[in-house]
């Protein structure tokens, strides 16, 4: 250690200090050291174009990592490929290698690259163009997205060898205007889809259909391109890629990139209120750890789960180091920042000028920011896959790196922090898509018909084409003549179909107290209970009353108030099982998977006095009933089990279990917590027994509850172990819920009931 500055000479020495620091180590629940890994390499493939070889050499690449070599070979052999690689393992070469080689061999060839975000596209274009310039060949790479000026669009359509875009642009601009892209579609040899793990759920189901349309257009122009996909580490990369592109793919996953020693530290903030199970704020603990690292001069990335937290942590950290580092050395990074600013931050991180960055998961995807030394995760990122991705941002090839994961009091975080083996030993989540979801499918069949008339005998998805065609003829959008179905409607179907529906469905909250300003957002499903008229909406500790809810326009107008009550709305949820597809029995417990309809209608709201919790009034809520037809999975307890508990006890037990399950279900799914819902019923209409239902929150379902049906036993075991290992006495927000909700014996009741629900005792 330097006696004058108090700084240690390197991360190694600092780690030694940390291990002796009881203040920190008392909260460390697990410290895992992952051994360094040597590079495994292969020579540059034979037959590689000399210009390409030279360009690679000048970049210091004289041999390949094994996965790059294998991806190249598989692509050259004509296979569709999915390459699975962790962060910073030279992933882009897996596709750039065969694509460039092919373009050098045949300059008439074309390639299309798809990235989920614009930022990633721009990175790619810069890299590709730099390589082409290095080779001094006329290979042109262009981005084609909403920001592309109209003046250069024509040039890109005709002369771009590699066109880099995103699925949304492909869906709404390129495919419907394919006749302007004749050159591309006639000569397309490769379609590169990077970050395929990002295409999951509803979005992924849409993208899979966009790919179906893309392939259809390619066939029309007589081309049959090869797909090269890249994915982060997920449980099912091959299956997922195959579903996404509808082709058999070759899996390449023998990562040969080297890695330095990696320390993974689980950190659980200390309990400050044992009765209520409240822990110290994870934000404050994150500030402490990140502050220590930054003060040591360790280049650090901090990930937080929301934009607000990013800003909060940024402010804290900038304060901490105000006297030591210049004020531009710690930066924030999130979606709302302008592209120019983001580029500047990325550059600063690569050059080392920026010593610390606080980011949302925006930096989780493959944007090039170089490799940092330390990573602090504020809260479990939600999935194992994301956690590895984010942690991968720290770790240089020759040096040690460290990742702290600071748990919040959320049950999922608590589960992870207390079960390190679950995290380290389990494969990451599965990416699920359901391209044949009827609503999604029909949307894209319309777009496809607009692009090219359907012919009898064609196939688009699993549904019978004739049925879909007939339906759309009845809907008066298609016209059949001469054995074909033609689009015969004035509208442009792609305009009304968004690939990322969920984001658009939010309600905006507008504060009219002084002028009008946007206060925040509420997702569509929560809107009826949170922002119905007369509701008290609390935002950053301030009370607002909803004056008007414009339901069709998705806007709520609120005004600041000061009252001594809050409101609580009753939502009447009715579940109707339409049809059971699968059924399994384990012991006394029956579980089923099938289709159901959910009718949700907010009925009344109560005004509840603060502190005393007296009911001081109520009012009706006039909002339309929402009906959702989806897929679900449910399990019921035996009548014996029901008989052993009073109705009240059963109510608390079921509620407790539901609270736990809704939080740990994402362990098995790559999904947003809002994508799945859990509903407990003491006496369900369908089963007449105490039942817990799960359902997908998207019409038609997207495969989430089906997956949960499959892993039921494991799910139950995890729930049990979470409740058992929680340090609270009788229920807390980190397990079954607070005692106000589940009663004094809620924890015990839930555990007793769970013991009957399968899994290991």
């Amino acid at each position, binding site marked *: 250690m330097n006696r004058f500055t108090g700084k240690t000479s390197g991360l190694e020495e600092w780690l030694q200090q940390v291990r002796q620091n009881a203040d920190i180590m008392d909260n460390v629940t697990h410290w895992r050291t992952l051994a360094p890994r040597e590079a495994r390499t292969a020579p540059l493939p034979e037959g590689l174009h000399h210009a390409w070889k030279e360009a690679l050499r000048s970049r210091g690449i004289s041999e390949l990592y094994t996965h790059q070599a294998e991806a190249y070979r598989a692509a050259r052999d004509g296979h569709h490929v999915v390459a699975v690689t962790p962060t910073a393992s030279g992933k882009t070469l897996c596709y750039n290698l065969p694509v460039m080689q092919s373009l050098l061999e045949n300059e008439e060839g074309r390639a299309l690259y798809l990235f989920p975000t614009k930022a990633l596209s721009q990175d790619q274009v810069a890299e590709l163009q730099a390589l082409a310039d290095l080779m001094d060949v006329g290979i042109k790479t262009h981005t084609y997205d909403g920001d592309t000026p109209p003046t250069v669009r024509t040039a890109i359509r005709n002369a771009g060898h590699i066109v880099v875009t995103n699925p949304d642009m492909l869906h709404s601009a390129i495919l419907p205007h394919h006749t302007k892209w004749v050159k591309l579609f006639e000569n397309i040899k490769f379609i590169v889809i990077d970050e395929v793990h990002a295409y999951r759920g509803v979005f992924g189901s849409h993208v899979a259909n966009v790919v179906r349309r893309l392939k259809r257009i390619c066939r029309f122009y007589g081309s049959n391109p090869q797909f090269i996909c890249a994915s982060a580490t997920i449980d099912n990369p091959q299956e997922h890629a195959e579903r996404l592109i509808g082709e058999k793919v070759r899996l390449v996953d023998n990562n040969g990139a080297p890695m330095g020693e990696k320390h993974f530290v689980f950190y659980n903030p200390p309990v400050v209120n044992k009765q209520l199970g409240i822990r110290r704020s994870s934000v404050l603990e994150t500030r402490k750890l990140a502050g220590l690292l930054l003060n040591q001069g360790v280049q650090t990335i901090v990930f937080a789960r929301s934009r607000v937290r990013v800003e909060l942590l940024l402010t804290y950290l900038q304060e901490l180091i105000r006297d030591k580092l210049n004020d531009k050395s710690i930066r924030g990074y999130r979606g709302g920042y302008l592209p120019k600013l983001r580029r500047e931050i990325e550059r600063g991180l690569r050059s080392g000028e920026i010593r610390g960055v606080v980011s949302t998961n925006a930096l989780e995807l493959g944007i090039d920011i170089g490799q940092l030394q330390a990573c602090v995760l504020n809260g479990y990122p939600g999935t194992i896959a994301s956690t590895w991705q984010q942690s991968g941002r720290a770790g240089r090839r020759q040096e040690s790196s460290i990742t702290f994961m600071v748990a919040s009091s959320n049950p999922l975080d608590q589960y992870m922090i207390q079960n390190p083996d679950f995290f380290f030993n389990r494969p990451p989540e599965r990416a699920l898509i359901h391209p044949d979801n009827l*609503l999604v499918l029909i949307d894209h069949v319309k777009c496809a018909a607009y692009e090219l008339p359907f012919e009898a005998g064609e196939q688009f998805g699993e549904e019978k084409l004739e*049925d879909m065609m007939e*339906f759309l003829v009845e809907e008066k959008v298609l016209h059949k003549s001469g054995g074909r179905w*033609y689009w*015969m409607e*004035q509208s442009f179907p792609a305009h009304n179909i968004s690939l990322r529906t969920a984001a658009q469905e939010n309600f905006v909250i507008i504060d009219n107290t002084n002028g009008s300003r946007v206060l925040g957002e509420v997702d569509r499903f929560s809107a009826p209970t949170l922002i119905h008229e007369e509701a008290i909406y609390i935002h950053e500790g301030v009370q607002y009353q909803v004056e008007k809810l414009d339901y069709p326009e998705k806007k709520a107008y609120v005004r600041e108030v000061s009252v001594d009550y809050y409101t609580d709305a009753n939502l009447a949820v009715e579940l109707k099982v339409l049809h059971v597809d699968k059924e399994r029995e384990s012991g006394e417990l029956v579980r089923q998977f099938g289709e159901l309809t959910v009718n949700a209608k907010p009925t009344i709201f109560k005004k509840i006095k603060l502190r005393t919790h007296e009911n001081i009034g109520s009012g009706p809520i006039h909002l339309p009933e929402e009906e959702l037809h989806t897929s679900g999975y449910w399990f019921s307890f035996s009548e014996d089990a029901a008989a052993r508990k009073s109705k009240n006890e059963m109510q608390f037990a079921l509620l407790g279990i539901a609270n736990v399950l809704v939080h740990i279900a994402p362990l098995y799914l790559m999904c947003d917590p809002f994508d799945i819902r859990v509903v407990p019923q003491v006496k369900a209409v369908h089963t007449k027994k105490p039942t817990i239902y799960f359902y997908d929150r998207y019409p038609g379902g997207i495969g989430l509850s089906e997956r949960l049906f499959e892993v039921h036993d494991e799910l139950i075991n995890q729930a049990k172990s979470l409740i058992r290992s929680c340090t609270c006495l009788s229920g807390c927000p980190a397990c079954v819920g607070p005692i106000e909700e589940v009663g004094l014996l809620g924890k015990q009741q839930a555990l007793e009931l769970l013991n009957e629900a399968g899994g290991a005792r």
Partner: protein
Amino acid sequence: MSGLRDRMNRLRGEQAGKTAEDAAAEWLTNEAENVQGELEAAEQAEEWISPVWDRFGVKLHTNETGSFLLRRIEYPADYRHGQHAINELHLASSGLNAFHARNHDTFAEQVLFLDLETTGLGVGAGNVPFMIGIGYITQERFTIEQALIRHPAEERAMLAYLAEKLPQYTYLATYNGRTFDWPLVQNRFIMNGLGRKLWEPLHIDFLHPARSVWRNTLVSCRLSHVEEERLGIQREDDVPGSLAPQLYFQFLADGNPAPLEGVFRHNETDMLSLACLAIRFGHLLNGNLVDYIPLPEEPEEMVRTGLWLEKMGKTNLSEPLFEMAARSETAGPSTLVMLAARDKKAGNWARAVLLWQKAVIRTSPNFGAAAMEASVELAMYYEHKLKDFESALGHAGTAFEQALNQSMLVRRDAKKRAELDSLRNRIARLRRKAGMQTL
């Protein structure tokens, strides 16, 4: 099939059950389909077409690729449509040469007029031209041919017919055809496998000159409005073009040709008006203003016409128009400023200064963007050209007042603020240069 509909209804949260009304509607649809089916069967049997078509001159046309309907109308060359007789085109066509710098003259016979009626908007792959209208002139007559497809499968035959006609012409004349009609035709050739570059015409899109000349003097540059205001054409019982798709879909559904007559007539008038526009702009480029077309009444239109002629390389024709506008007593400030900007660029400072001064004088006290612009220009002129800083300061001061007055009425956006800031800077600089103390 009904299974799929039920599932869709459930997913959309709609009532699945059929009501009596639905059943009745369905019965009617089925009935209509049956009739339609019989009609189709009959048509296919011996290419029978409804006698209704004959009422408005529509005949069946068959070629190697298939069949479609064709209506041909011939107008005698001296037919008058509004102000112009069609055969003026022979006289005016040489002027059209200016659109494409070419050595030899443009002959009226080389021009093909084109106008489509389509099923939708935009130039996406799913927008189908169900009617293609073309027009061409000979010494004796002006011919309009309108092809209509009875269903989408006839499109290929219609396009094949068009593809055969096109190479006989050198010029393509349209209204908004550069961004709509022609790219759409090209789309359809590609979609129907008829090749990509069948014909590469010299394209003249009259929307562009129409916008240049009438942007501010006409409420809209839609063809129907332009022809009424400037070509003396009155349409009677016109079916608006925007209704055409619905009428066509109706025809697809019930097979009744009658309502399509209106669409044919609408397209026919469009073709005639298109020819008249060619005559109009041809005359203009030939310097035949006054003789064949009236002088623009409004100074604004005079200036815009002059600017357009200048852009088309007819500088000699534009100067008289400019002079007339400059002398006009009714020219508004914005017109004067527009012409002054042209003069400034052309180096005609004397007239530019005069125009700016007039613009300031003719503006109602202290208000108007044009007046402010004129004051700024005058300030610049006095500062940089004459080095008369005090006069420049006077003009800059006027401009500043005008800008302030304006921003009281207009919302103060970033642009307005920048304008005020730059004026403040200018005044400060001029004070320095004039040897005054800055405030």
